[in-house]
């Protein structure tokens, strides 16, 4: 009788602990999935904006062919990319190409003043921010998941919950890389 009083609560605590750990791992995995889906939604939105943008720039600056082509190629690559690393790489290239296009637009006052272009610019800057925040949220979710997967005691249930550590969404940013090194 006495041992039962001791063993039953102990078993109950262990069962609750297993369930809680298992659920938190599964939940972290699902939120990483959701966060990645959100990146794809935002990338799709950006890809949808680009034809409009290219058209409106063409109207004023048709001879900036190389910049326009760079955007179109990068967009094509981005829409066909798969996997976290592939999507991230294509996303980085498109971001750079778009920056180039907006820099070109700076030297066309008529283009900059057109209401169509202004509306597109607002849409594009909000979409760029949304893409960036979606990436950040994904990376935060992955950090939480990886922490749970790698630290004790939640690491004990990784096999049971069928989850594993994931790769961060890292965008190659050439402008960051070319930043001048300051030496003292």
């Amino acid at each position: 009788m006495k041992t039962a009083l001791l063993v039953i609560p102990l078993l109950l605590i262990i069962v609750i602990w297993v369930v809680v750990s298992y659920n938190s791992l599964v939940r972290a995995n699902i939120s990483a999935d959701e966060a990645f889906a959100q990146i794809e939604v935002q990338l799709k939105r950006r890809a949808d904006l680009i034809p409009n943008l290219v058209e409106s720039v063409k109207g004023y600056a048709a001879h900036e062919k190389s910049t326009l082509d760079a955007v179109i190629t990068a967009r094509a690559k981005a829409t066909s990319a798969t996997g976290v690393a592939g999507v991230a790489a294509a996303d980085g290239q498109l971001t750079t190409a778009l920056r180039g296009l907006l820099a070109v637009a700076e030297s066309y006052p008529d283009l900059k003043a057109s209401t169509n272009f202004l509306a597109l610019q607002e849409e594009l800057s909000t979409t760029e921010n949304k893409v960036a925040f979606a990436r950040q949220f994904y990376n935060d979710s992955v950090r939480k998941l990886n922490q749970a997967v790698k630290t004790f005691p939640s690491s004990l249930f990784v096999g049971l919950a069928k989850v594993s550590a994931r790769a961060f969404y890292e965008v190659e940013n050439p402008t960051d890389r070319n930043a001048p090194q300051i030496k003292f």
Partner: protein
Amino acid sequence: MSESAGNFRQLQSANRRKTFTLLAAMGALVWAVVFAAMTYLGKSTTAIVPIAVGIALISVWGSYYFSDSLVMTMTGARIIEREDNPTLFNLVEEVCLASGLKLPKVAIVEDTAPNAFATGRNPEHAVIAFTTRILQIMDRDELQGVIAHEMSHVANRDTLVSAVAATTAGAIAILSDMLMRIMFFGGMGDRDDRENNQNPLAIVVSLVVLILAPIAAVLLKTAISRKRESLADATAVAFTRNPAGLRRALEKLQNDTTVVAQKSNAVAHIWIESPLDGKGVSKLFSSHPPLEERIAILRNMEANPL
């Protein structure tokens, strides 16, 4: 100043810890008041405790549960749709993506002072409101900082935290008020109890506790409110990773001397810049940390990225 050191993660956990300590201190204060009452007036006075807590709970619970509609009415805020201000909605959506929160209702308050607030009992009922003036004077990054601060209140459940603080402070106020009245009328025929406990020092201490408790409760309540504001600033940076945006927004608020027309004490604590905390008010009684201090902490975050 220890608060100005560190990045947003350290600041977030520091402010969470401080809120917890302050709420625990409030709990201890309730206990001290009950203990003082028992010492001074006898054990039967404990019967008032559930009454006081009950009154406080009912009065605060209503304003917590219906906070969204109540605050909207008190401030004259009007819900707007996407077509009314697409850029504002774009910015709110950006912060929602950064925070993983649902899109809140967005509202406008017609006012010549720049200010903003968030309310609602949970993220599903959240409303964030902006005065017409703040939308005019802030640029994109600054407004993003302000929205992130408001969404941080939603994420950190600050309507709930302030409701808990208000309930406890209210219960202490009611309790000590009732006990003081009982004292004036010489106790409730509880002489036997009291005779047994005639340590004069204990009686003096109890009296002091009963007199000072309501003030202490108010001080704790405003301290909690200040910690939640600092926490919301840190969480806002966690969302946007851009302390400069919110810092410049606060600087604009600092340089602006206008104050929202509606100065009700009841909703003063919800605005991003308090309409009540003037220069003359002691820091101890204000619901927000001084703007200079908040700006200094944000500047420090700019110097300490991650």
